[in-house]
């Protein structure tokens, strides 16, 4: 319960920081968008239109009241933010859920395999280091070159008809999911593998070997219980990261998710949309961290008893 309250406090802090921070920063979104040649009258007009002429605390207060009532405000383009977000959130969640479903067994299997067998480890760890170092769009770019340009198997751009779900044309999902999966896999495999290596080198596993325990027993009784808490944390955080961190992949393929919306909103200086998105992604992230903490306590008998 305490961690839930802490996270809630952090979320409030975050939303406040976003509000005030954007206000305090030396740049001015309105002047920056309109250009240096814009007339003062025009700037004042745009500021008034966006509500930027009111004091920042007053704006924050009315925004919070709105959010509590389920109203995320009105975007600079005049549309309510909530309606702009509704489809997009679903698309992004779909993307991350599909990726996560593939990520969980793959990362666990590869990581334990890498910890188990040295020859496999070379390839897996080397690949993971490479993928973990590069931005998603680099991976995505390479995938486009191979699958869309050379082999022509899949579309390079995820064109989804307005109002329909990406599920109606599953082929557009393949490359975005694959890009996210590879990068997420690299990170997850690195963390899970290092945990599994630690377990396999520990005295109690050696004791099990000396007692003639079978490979399956060692895996099931020693490796699995020790690695699972770590793995669950990684999966949760990675999964949420997909929703927010898929910005680059969504932009790369033009996938209609929240990441793509976020980028276009930043470009047009559409603050209400940016604030709403940061709130949603931050909340998801903090929620996942709380869940991850709970999962660790649940999966670790020592901590469970200590409660």
């Amino acid at each position, binding site marked *: 319960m305490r*961690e839930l309250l*802490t*996270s809630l406090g*952090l979320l409030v802090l*975050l939303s406040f920081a*976003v509000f005030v*921070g954007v206000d305090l*920063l030396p*740049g001015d979104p309105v002047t*920056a968008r309109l250009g240096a040649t814009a007339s003062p009258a025009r700037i004042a007009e745009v500021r008034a239109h966006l509500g930027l002429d009111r004091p920042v605390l007053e704006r924050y207060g009315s925004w919070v009241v709105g959010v509590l009532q389920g109203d995320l405000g009105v975007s600079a383009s005049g549309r309510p933010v909530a309606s702009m977000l509704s489809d997009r959130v679903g698309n992004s969640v779909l993307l991350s859920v599909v990726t996560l479903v593939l990520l969980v067994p793959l990362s666990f299997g590869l990581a334990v395999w890498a*910890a188990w067998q*040295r020859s496999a*480890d*070379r390839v897996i*760890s*080397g690949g993971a*280091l490479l993928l*973990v*170092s*590069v*931005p998603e769009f*680099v991976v995505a*770019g390479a995938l*486009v*070159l191979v699958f869309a*340009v050379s082999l022509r198997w899949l579309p390079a751009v995820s064109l989804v008809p307005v109002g329909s779900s990406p599920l109606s044309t599953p082929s557009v999902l393949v490359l975005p999911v694959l890009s996210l999966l590879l990068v*997420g896999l690299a990170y997850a495999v690195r*963390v*899970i593998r*290092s*945990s599994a*290596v*630690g377990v396999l*080198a*520990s005295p109690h596993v050696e004791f099990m070997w000396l007692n003639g325990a079978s490979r399956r027993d060692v895996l099931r009784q020693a490796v699995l219980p020790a690695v699972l*808490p*770590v793995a669950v*944390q*990684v999966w949760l*955080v990675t999964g*949420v*990261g997909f929703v*927010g*961190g898929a*910005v*680059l992949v969504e932009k*790369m393929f033009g996938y209609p998710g929240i990441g793509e919306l*976020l980028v276009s909103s*930043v*470009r047009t200086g559409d*603050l209400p949309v940016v604030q709403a998105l940061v709130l949603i992604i931050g909340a998801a992230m903090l929620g996942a*961290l*709380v869940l991850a*903490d709970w999962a*660790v*306590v649940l999966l*670790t008998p*020592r*901590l469970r008893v200590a*409660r």
Partner: protein
Amino acid sequence: MSRDVGAGGAADLGAGGAAGLGAGGAAGRDGLARDAASAGDAGRAGVVSVAGDADRAGAVSVAGGAVSPEVRAGGAVSPEVRAGGAVSRDGQAGAEVPRDGGSPATQRTRRHRQDRAARPEQDGKAWQRRLVAGLKRGWWPLALLTLILIAPELAPHAATDVVGLPYSTQGLLGTDHLGRDVLSRLMHGGRPMVLTSLAAAALGTGAGTLIGLVAAWWRPFVLRPWDAVAAVPGILVLLLVLTAMPNRAGIVFAVALASVPLSARVVHAAAAQVIGKAHVEHAKVRGERTAWILGREVLPLIGTTVLADLGLRFVMAVYLVAAAGFLGLSTMSSDWGLLVVEALPGAALQPVALLAPVVGIAVVAVSANRVADRVGEWA
């Protein structure tokens, strides 16, 4: 327990990975993936230090002890990447980390044994020799860095010059959709990208070190507000700051802001160990000023940790700066991220224009990771 499970409570879990995750976990996947190593740092720093490394005498080795298990674990893997899957060049790292890792505990005892064996010859010269050897081993990334920095002077054309027809094969790498020379654009784009990343990494690590030191000296509570920042993926921080400051200073500031929470955690973990030591207590009793103690008694002992962290922040900075270019939010005319976007529509006609920046970013990112590993090993 709550979030402390992640923060520093490695001892409670006994699993370095889990603890590391919490520290970086808050950072979101973006920061995280690239921060796998740093997250590990924080976690391992916790594990190693809580276990009490009293046996390890000497300033540098204490600070190094906090970081190196993770860094070394990485180090043992990476020579293969460099050598293209060949046998590990670096016998030392390979020998030290059998099966690539081992538990923190076994690694520790192993290093203890080595330390004991090596101690008689461990004078100033041996240290220098190791530094030189480290530089030698790190020549490749350094040469790459130099090459990138001087490349704009050598480029055959300006970044925006039209030299031929669009998508022609003129020049080494052909031309792009506006008929500009891809090679020249690539050469011009490297320097601003690397310099921006360096500035951002230095700023982020600097501020993070300051906050980490204050947190270690005063109250860990100082780190709490930064958890809110850490909960936002780095790419989001970047977008947010660029909404208000759409210029290069904005990129530097955003990347620094995204790195501060991670740096602060790593430095806090390392500094907390040093602050309990006798010489610091002695300085306190002597009545030295806090700033003096932190700067003269604490900071030198965690210098290696800070340097290794700087390397990791640079990796993250390259990622974010390239991402800014990719998203069209950079002000540089031939940012490598921008080159990727521009090459996308014509990828079928001119695949090299897409391949070149993709390979370029990958090479810079991987070698920056290698340098960060190396710095950790100097300890």
